């Protein structure tokens, strides 16, 4: 879990420098069960951090402590350099929580829900009205904004649930499995809005047990199981960690052996196997290598029919680390 960005950890002031969220040694017990066992993480502005773990891993418990809903038994949490806990009031202004379970008033319309929570965040007037429109637009609910939310579909409710969490432009947005049980269209809308938000500079903490989501959204991923973070890093780092390598498969007509020779000379390529018209290359990071590979193959006169990239996924990382599958 080496991480160059965490070199300043010994000095708390310096460690939190630039970090929107800094969590260290977080512990929470329920009776005999240690639901969260020494979790640490750091998220910077514009970064999306994924907490990837199966049911009961301790994701919601971790988030509840960060959002100040639950006291921690040990550990520290700081948001924008300020300590965070259930009794802190001011710091909560900087956090937007999207709970795992829906948290909206069914009798109110989307606009009313947003206005209510926006006001409680201290917003008012034009600024609030404009922000409500902006957020409704982001989650694609503008056309149903004035209907009572009890008549919404499950996916629409989930989208509104997210909108409420970001109405006040928090520095840190915490989303707890926001896509569970939604239709593909809503799911896509949700993922797109999270991408847009991190593009705006929000720090995002995103829990999920869908590895595709973690892979698509997250700059860094922490793999959590039984309350502990088993590994952390970028997607590639995690895959490298388990010795995983990418494979590029080229199929084409022409001087196959000659191409193989030329490809072997490339620094990014580990191994090249030849089997009929098919070349199988072992590389470290396929997306950054593929262009070079294709150009080299073309230069040697290979006419490509097909290029295929095969990557080990986070599922295999998870399996490797914990000995179990992400989903039952």
């Amino acid at each position, binding site marked *: 879990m080496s991480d160059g960005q965490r070199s300043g950890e010994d000095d708390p002031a310096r460690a939190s420098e630039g970090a929107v969220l800094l969590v260290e040694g977080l512990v929470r017990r329920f009776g005999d069960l240690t639901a969260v066992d020494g979790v640490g993480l750091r998220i910077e502005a514009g970064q999306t951090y994924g907490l990837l773990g199966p049911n009961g891993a301790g994701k919601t418990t971790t988030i509840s402590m960060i*959002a*100040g*809903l639950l006291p921690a038994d040990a550990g520290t949490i700081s948001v924008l350099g300020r300590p965070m806990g259930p009794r802190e009031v*001011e*710091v909560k202004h900087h956090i937007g929580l999207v*709970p795992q379970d829906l*948290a909206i008033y069914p*009798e109110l319309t989307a606009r009313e829900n947003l206005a*209510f929570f926006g006001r409680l965040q201290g917003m008012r007037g034009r600024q609030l009205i404009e922000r409500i429109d902006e957020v409704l637009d982001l989650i694609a609910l503008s056309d149903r904004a004035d209907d009572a939310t009890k008549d919404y579909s499950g996916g629409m409710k989930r989208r509104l649930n997210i909108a409420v969490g970001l109405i006040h432009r928090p520095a840190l947005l915490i989303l707890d499995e926001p896509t569970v049980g939604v239709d593909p269209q809503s799911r896509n809308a949700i993922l797109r809005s999270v991408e847009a938000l991190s593009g705006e500079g929000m720090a995002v903490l995103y829990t999920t047990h869908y590895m595709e989501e973690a892979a698509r959204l997250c700059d860094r991923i922490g793999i959590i199981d039984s309350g502990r973070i088993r590994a952390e890093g970028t997607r590639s780092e995690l895959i490298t960690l388990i010795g995983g390598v990418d494979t590029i498969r080229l199929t084409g007509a022409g001087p196959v052996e000659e191409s193989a020779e030329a490809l072997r000379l490339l620094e990014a390529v580990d191994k090249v196997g030849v089997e009929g018209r098919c070349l199988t290359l072992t590389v470290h990071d396929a997306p950054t290598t593929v262009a070079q590979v294709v150009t080299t193959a073309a230069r040697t006169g290979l006419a490509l029919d097909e290029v295929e990239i095969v990557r080990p996924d986070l599922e295999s990382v998870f399996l490797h680390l914990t000995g179990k599958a992400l989903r039952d």
Partner: protein
Amino acid sequence: MRALWIMTFSDLRLNLRNRSVLLFALVIPASLMTVLSITYNTGEATGLTGSQSLSPVSVAAAVPEGDRLGTTLLTALTHLNDLDIDVELTSADRARALAGSGEADLALFVPEGFTDAVRAGRGPTVSTVRADGTGAEVELLLSVIGGTLEQFHDGALAARAATAGGVPAAELDQVALQAALREPSVAFLEGRTSSEQLSATGALVAGQAGLFLFFTVGFGVLALVSERETGTWTRLCSLPLRPWTIVASKALVSYVLGVASTGVLLTVGILLLDVDFGAPLPIALLVLCAVAAGTSLMFVVARLARTAEQANLFQTALAMILGLAGGAFFPLSVSGPLDAILDLNPVAAFSRGLGITSGGGGPTDLGAPVAILLGSAAVTAALSLLLPDRGRAT
């Protein structure tokens, strides 16, 4: 502070949109009041507006030959100042027949061996049969009888204690008679005249308003329980609010709804059912105190209930028990220690307070009911703080 108003206002708006509030706080109680008052008033008007209007009561009494305390009881009744009582000594069968035919208002049966039973310290059991259609005078008489029997019992116990076992008959009679002649009428008049100032309809309106108050206040505080179910509780806890703000806003919602609905119900009573509750200021004081008691009690319910459905059940049970015991459906008269307990019931205290105001009492005359209402508010508030929160998820 701003957050408190935002939450209170939003909840109030939601409540007004929600038809069940209007239904429970206004429509149902107002209809019930009207229906009940019509039912009660189709017979003879039973309103008591003062001791002057009490009409004579005839009692047919069956007392065993030579039963000293039985005779003492009758003597005590005929000596009552406020009631004109005509006692006819007769056999048990005839007494029953007289009450059955309505010739006597009340039949009174003193059992064989009554005096000995009292002396032995066993509870005296005297039964009565009330003629149909009798009014508040009989009500009054019954509670006097109850009080007298109570005194017999206490007197016997005291005398037994004093003489360490052997109770001279004469002494017991003396104690009993003294007690019977003095105490019950005094205690009775002190404890009761005020509430008897309310007409039958007035008592109904007061009782119904009191009962439904316990439904109405639920719409504020019990939202604490339902918000756990909608998940909004979690969200509220994540907002930059001081923790007391959420609870205070729910209390405020209950309070506002309670005051508004009770105000409307009493006004309906005054304007449509012709009830005279007295001056507005002391009435307002009573309403404010009663709503405080109701709101506070809801916090106990919110603590005990795991789900919103459970909360509603608890609340309904509480409201019905307090309402029944407070005379929301029919006048309830018991005497002795039970009466003292019933007097602590906020609905009863509210009705009693309205009895005082309707008799012309001002704020300073409302000491007892106000103390009971505020006391109950304080006790239940403290209780809600001490009780574990059964519905909390974590």
